[in-house]
């Protein structure tokens, strides 16, 4: 499997080349176009219970689609729902990424996806909900963001503060705590930041340049209300 990002920027697509019998699993609905040699299968990753728990708990899609090059090599074009960048990550079996539920676009066959329960405070206050995706295994992982994607590299014990709704993914060697944005509660709320995540290295944190929740609130004012 080889991947290539087309039209980098706000409206990218990924071209995935598959050799015969290779597969790629993608978020359901992510396929834009494919060679005639590709078959689309719907698959419940991790079995029925695994899929159910992922759907119920993290709000991710119940089914992933599996695109299989069953009748010879071919290519697949994949695109996310929201405008925003795409990033390719290589998983080598030892590194793992925690991904917020809308961040996953596609992954190679060897990529393993599971729902993971966060600690209580992180789940309640972190803004990603109580469950996030833990993605490990081997092969290429394709993530998408809302807006541009920005990589923050942290050395051991180096810290960085991120507004929680801008999170896309982070490595499992990175820890984080939820804190107030300012020293006082009033200032935290009035600054418009509220709660932030203090990340501590080593590892990598991917953030998105736009906040989907804020964008939703902004766009709501233009939607005519039917009486």
């Amino acid at each position: 499997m080889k991947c290539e990002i087309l039209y980098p920027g706000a409206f990218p697509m990924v071209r995935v080349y598959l050799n015969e019998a290779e597969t790629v699993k993608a978020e359901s609905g992510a396929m834009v176009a494919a060679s005639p040699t590709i078959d689309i299968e719907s698959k419940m990753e991790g079995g029925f219970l695994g899929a159910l728990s992922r759907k119920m708990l993290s709000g991710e899609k119940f089914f992933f689609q599996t695109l299989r090059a069953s009748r010879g090599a071919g290519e697949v074009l994949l695109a996310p729902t929201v405008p925003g960048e795409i990033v390719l990550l290589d998983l080598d079996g030892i590194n793992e990424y925690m991904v917020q539920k809308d961040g996953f676009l596609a992954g190679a066959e060897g990529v393993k996806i599971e729902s993971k329960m966060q600690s209580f405070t992180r789940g309640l206050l972190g803004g990603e909900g109580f469950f996030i995706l833990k993605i490990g295994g081997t092969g290429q992982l394709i993530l998408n963001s809302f807006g541009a994607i920005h990589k923050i590299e942290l050395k051991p014990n180096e810290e960085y503060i991120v507004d929680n709704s801008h999170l896309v993914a982070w490595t499992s060697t990175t820890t984080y705590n939820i804190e107030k944005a300012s020293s006082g509660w009033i200032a935290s709320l009035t600054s418009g930041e509220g709660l932030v995540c203090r990340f501590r290295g080593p590892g990598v944190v991917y953030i998105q340049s736009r906040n989907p929740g804020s964008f939703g609130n902004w766009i709501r004012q233009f939607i005519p209300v039917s009486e």
Partner: protein
Amino acid sequence: MNQAPNALCFGDGLPAAGAPCHVTLSAEGLRLEPVEGSPLSEEFVAFVGMSVTAGGLDHDQLVVSWGAGTSARTVYLKEPVLIVAFRRAAPSTLLAHLERAAEQVRRARHSHRALWGSAVGVVVGLGLMVWFGSDLIVEWAVARIPAQWEQTLGETVYQDFLSKETVLKEGPAVSAVQEMTQRMAAQIPNNPYTFRVSVVQSPVVNAFALPGGYVVVFTGLMKKAESGEEVAGVLSHELNHVLQRHGMERMVKMLGLAAVVSILSGDQQGLIGLARQLGLELATLKFGREQETEADVTGIRLLYDARIAPDGMIRFFERLSEKDKERVELFSSHPMSAARAKRLKEELAALPKQTSEPFTFEWKGVQDSLGASEPKQ
């Protein structure tokens, strides 16, 4: 050389996400071997000079660090097998660190579980409270609704309803109903409501009351009733629904938690918005059986206080009970009319005898006026 990686190494000159490497343990220390394409070089690190902590997102990884400055290296071990092997091989000097690391993990897990446990406990507790104590919560919340709110709310629905109906503006029927209402309202001590009664042209044999004291009587009821006292009985029952705030109780129950929250936060607009969603459902709101019985009992006392002959109310139920034959009591929110009449007779018997005062209008005349105003079909 080409082993599968089992650890990640961090440090200057290494990728930020960590350089995958293969770690093996011996009695003296730890051997770090690079995997294919890794910028690391093979290295042996003695246990002496190493420090160990717990790390990673869930404090479940063993973090081994050594060196200082630019040559400082940190290795994250994740696999349980490898962590156990490390603990076996490590000398006693490192055990203190290890124990501290293990203790950190245990504490993190413990607080994690305790928090989840208490959260589940709170949710279950709230669930039980709502299940068993919902009536108490509703009563408590309703008692906190100012009469002013009820009035605003009732009026909104009242106007919505009346705008779609033919309302009698004047005439003997209207003045008769007003006379009944005034006589009863005068007997209510500390009445927070101003009752407003409208007579609506409709063949429906019914009357209803909205929160805040807005009452609608249908002409169908007035034509069916054999005396003014019968209508007064139904009115008294409806006025008592208002006084006991039954409508608000039903509404708060239907709106549920959202209403409780808006009451507690003093958000009147929110509550009215919620009520409007229900719209005219409020007008056809079914009361519970207990509420009906309560309104009956307090209704007959109100009639008694206003010196209106209370047997009109009883007679009306008795006549209704003739239509009840096929109804099964269990399925109805209204107690059977016959049972209601019996209950009311008992209540009445307990009250001292008094002579009632007749109304100033003549009932036959009132009914005749309705017959004349009925639109021709």
